């Protein structure tokens, strides 16, 4: 196991593991160790904590404040968070990869501990006592034996900075003494949101602000020929039609005027068919030139496979998925000669400010970028691109401009979760254990974050074809290796240089797709061995923590040990399925168990119940954690059952909620969660892990119910019927 995950990391595991490398900085920013960059003690007794991460709707603003309040012995309401502002907060690169609590949280925890130590040293001098004679409560330091000798944090600091490095030597509070971390603190943002207070980038209004809408090309390879400005001449309030290369936007005094102008502007385009036919997508992915990374090699796969008593082989398919944020992207920009101010719901304020500066041809320090929350994005949606559109339009009219993408803009132009092909081959030995395991995945890179102008849609449209590629391929290796102890195995990642549709990160990157394939194939192996699916996994899983998670899920689900499928043929068939993953092979551990009902005459799948067991180390906020696990489970179920971006050789055809349906209330199952708290282990992220196990658990449950194996997402009725017709077992 150790060897295996070590190899996986070397070949391209977590960016955070490459400490000091340029790649790491490109992704996670340049972390400062200067205490005042992280914390300020304000004269009114409150504390401001600065994080370069941003709130993406997962509740990290509250979780980080909990960490600071805990370490500084302050009530939570006296901690304010300032996040994602290029003039005020540290550069922490992108908010991604479920890394906020572990990276920003750990930096803030160390900074708060350093601040507390400094304050205690200062108080010892002022109160004429040894530091060990002092106690702290709610930001008030007093002498234990003489409580009348006391001084507050604010009095000690007098509004001055610490002028000190965070050395990492300050003692951290023992987790057993926690009173704030580990409690289900209510999220600070919810009261405002339910009352209709301005909370989102879409709600930001500046004096003199104009409204912008876009007129995008009708297909990705279309070229601008001409436009007829007379077609919008009569529209009241129209300020300007901006056309630069293939970029077209309209700016008007009022939002409805901008919308009308965008609809009415007549533009002639030269279109080209530039996409592979959708029915050939997986063949296309398998036939392109690739860069191949062998991420695990253990034992001798070839010999073990040849000697196996039972040999199996299967291919699995993942289509393009849309992030499909409920609120289409929006941004506000005010481009002035000497100062450019941008408000955006970007996951990466610093990298985006650099890309926008490049787009405008100005030095990066001229761009002040402030993050404002948007609708949930789950990775890279259109938010960075909307910011670029806003600066282009504001520059053209010399006034602040708010750009609102349409629903269709978002579906068509947001980067998609990449389509992938996964192929597995393996063999069982005479005892029915896995003797040989070969796993290969074909995928474009999962990372195309905007850190230069050519990665932004506006940059690409203005300057001709750019590439969204980040410069290195990343993400498809995530959870390509399993944590099972297979004696002979190989795991290979084949990266395509380009993606047929613009692609970038979606929650867990390749983690969900690889787990769908690995855990489906593991189930196929278990069935071939005539073994119970949970027992078969436990047989190959040595780690006690991992076993505990799988066992906890099985117990909660009332798992009955028996092989699948039982050979019954019913019109309404019920079944259960399990899937297990150790996220990124060393982060949170998850096991999901699905209970499904399949209507074998229509192929319709109804998921009735999901049980999820989850271990992410120390739990910061149990209710916030459950919220994330529920959300991950429901969203990934929507992806598994319903979602697929449809396109033809010309253009994307998924443009609205009819052509890209998602799960509705009537289709949502009950979700039961078992949290396993490990107070002595570091807190790791929970924003993504539970998104990985749903699809395989459901596919395995469909097999258990019907004997039909679905290997292509989404599991639509037609596809389930096809699988039923293809034969059982």
């Amino acid at each position, binding site marked *: 196991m150790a060897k295996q995950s070590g190899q996986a990391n070397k070949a391209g595991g977590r960016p955070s593991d490459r400490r000091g490398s340029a790649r790491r900085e490109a992704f996670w920013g340049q972390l400062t160790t200067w205490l005042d960059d992280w914390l300020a003690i304000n004269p009114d007794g409150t504390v401001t904590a600065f994080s370069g991460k941003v709130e993406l709707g997962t509740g990290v603003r509250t979780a980080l404040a909990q960490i600071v309040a805990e370490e500084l012995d302050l009530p939570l309401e006296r901690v304010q968070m300032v996040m994602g502002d290029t003039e005020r907060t540290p550069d922490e690169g992108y908010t991604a990869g479920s890394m906020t609590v572990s990276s920003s949280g750990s930096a803030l925890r160390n900074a708060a501990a350093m601040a507390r130590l400094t304050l205690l040293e200062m108080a010892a001098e002022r109160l004429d006592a040894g530091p060990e004679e002092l106690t702290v409560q709610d930001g008030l330091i007093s002498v234990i034996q003489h409580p009348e000798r006391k001084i507050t944090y604010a009095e000690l600091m007098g509004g001055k900075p610490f002028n000190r490095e965070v050395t990492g030597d300050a003692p951290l509070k023992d987790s057993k003494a926690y009173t704030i971390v580990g409690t289900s603190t209510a999220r600070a943002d919810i009261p405002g949101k*339910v009352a*209709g207070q301005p909370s989102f980038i879409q709600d930001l*209004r500046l004096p003199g602000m104009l409204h912008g809408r876009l007129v995008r090309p009708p297909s990705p390879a279309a070229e601008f020929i001409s436009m007829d400005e007379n077609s919008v001449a009569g529209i009241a309030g129209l300020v300007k039609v901006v056309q630069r290369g293939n970029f077209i936007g309209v700016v008007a005094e009022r939002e409805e005027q901008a919308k009308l102008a965008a609809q009415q502007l007549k533009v002639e385009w030269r279109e080209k068919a530039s996409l592979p036919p959708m029915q050939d997508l997986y063949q296309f992915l398998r036939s392109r030139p690739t860069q191949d990374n062998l991420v695990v090699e253990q034992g001798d796969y070839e010999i073990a496979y040849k000697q196996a008593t039972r040999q199996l082989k299967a291919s699995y398919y993942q289509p393009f998925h849309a992030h499909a944020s409920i609120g289409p992207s929006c941004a506000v920009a005010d481009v002035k000669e000497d100062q450019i101010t941008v408000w955006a719901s970007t996951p990466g304020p610093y990298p985006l400010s650099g890309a926008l500066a490049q787009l405008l041809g100005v030095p990066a320090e001229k761009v002040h970028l402030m993050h404002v929350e948007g609708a*949930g994005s789950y990775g890279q949606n259109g938010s960075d691109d909307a910011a670029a559109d806003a600066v282009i339009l504001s520059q053209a009219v010399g006034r602040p401009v708010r750009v609102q993408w349409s629903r269709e803009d978002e579906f068509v132009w947001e980067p998609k979760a990449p389509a992938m092909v996964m192929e597995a081959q393996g063999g069982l030995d005479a005892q029915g254990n896995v003797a040989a395991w070969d796993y290969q995945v074909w995928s474009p890179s999962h990372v195309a974050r905007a850190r230069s102008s050519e990665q932004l849609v506006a940059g690409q449209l203005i300057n001709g074809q750019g590439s969204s590629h980040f410069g290195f391929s990343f993400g498809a290796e995530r959870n390509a290796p399993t944590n099972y102890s297979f004696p002979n195995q190989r795991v290979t990642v084949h990266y395509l240089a380009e993606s047929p549709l613009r692609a970038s990160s979606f929650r867990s990157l390749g983690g969900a797709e690889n787990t769908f394939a690995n855990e489906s194939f593991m189930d196929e192996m278990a069935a071939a061995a005539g073994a119970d699916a949970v027992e078969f996994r436990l047989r190959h899983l040595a780690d006690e923590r991992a076993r505990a998670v799988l066992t906890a899920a099985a117990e909660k689900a009332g798992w009955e040990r028996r092989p699948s499928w039982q050979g019954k043929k019913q019109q309404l068939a019920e079944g259960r399925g399990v899937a297990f993953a150790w996220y990124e092979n060393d982060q949170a551990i998850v096991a999901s168990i699905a209970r499904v009902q399949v209507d074998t005459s229509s192929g319709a799948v109804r998921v009735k119940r999901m049980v999820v067991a989850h271990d992410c180390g120390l739990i910061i906020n149990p209710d916030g954690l459950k*919220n994330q696990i529920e959300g991950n489970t429901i969203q990934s179920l929507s992806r598994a059952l319903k979602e697929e971006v449809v396109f033809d050789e010309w253009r994307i055809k998924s443009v609205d909620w009819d052509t890209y349906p998602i799960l509705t209330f009537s289709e949502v199952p009950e979700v039961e969660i078992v949290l396993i708290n490990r107070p002595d282990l570091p807190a790791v992220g929970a924003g993504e892990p539970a998104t990985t196990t749903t699809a395989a658990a459901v596919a395995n449950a469909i097999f258990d119910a019907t004997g039909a194996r679905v290997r292509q997402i989404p599991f639509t009725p037609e596809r389930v019927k096809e699988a039923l017709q293809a034969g059982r077992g």
Partner: protein
Amino acid sequence: MSDEIVLTVNGKAYYIKAAPDTALLYVLRNELGLSGPHFGCGGEKCGACMVLVGAKPVLSCHLPISEVGRSRVTTLEGLIEEGELHPVQQAFIDEQATQCGYCVNGMIISTAALLWKTPHPSDEQIKEALDGNLCRCGSHLRILRAVRRAEQLMAELEAQ
């Protein structure tokens, strides 16, 4: 553009200077400065823009202001009475029933309308009432719990 239309929003009458075919959503947000109703799809498919017209939940992203007539429009903000949150709003806080919170406007408006009409709905009635409101974060189960909590809070108020 010079037409003047009177709209009653959250108990107050407003003289609106906008084209009669302007969608109610833009007037609420940009003329009246309200932030409860959100633009989600512009095609009446997601529920983010929902408001109450009378006691009925209505999608405001397409509805021309000229068709609102004398009906009273209530937005998320208008559910608050004398600084007190409406029980449905309180229930969403109690159950922490959002993640990003962008869709929460429509969820609360739909729930308020449902509970006025049907104070003790069945599970099926709740799901049916909310099926036109999309949530991408997967907060559905919390929202369903919030509806039950709101039912309870409203019944308690009624009993007082």
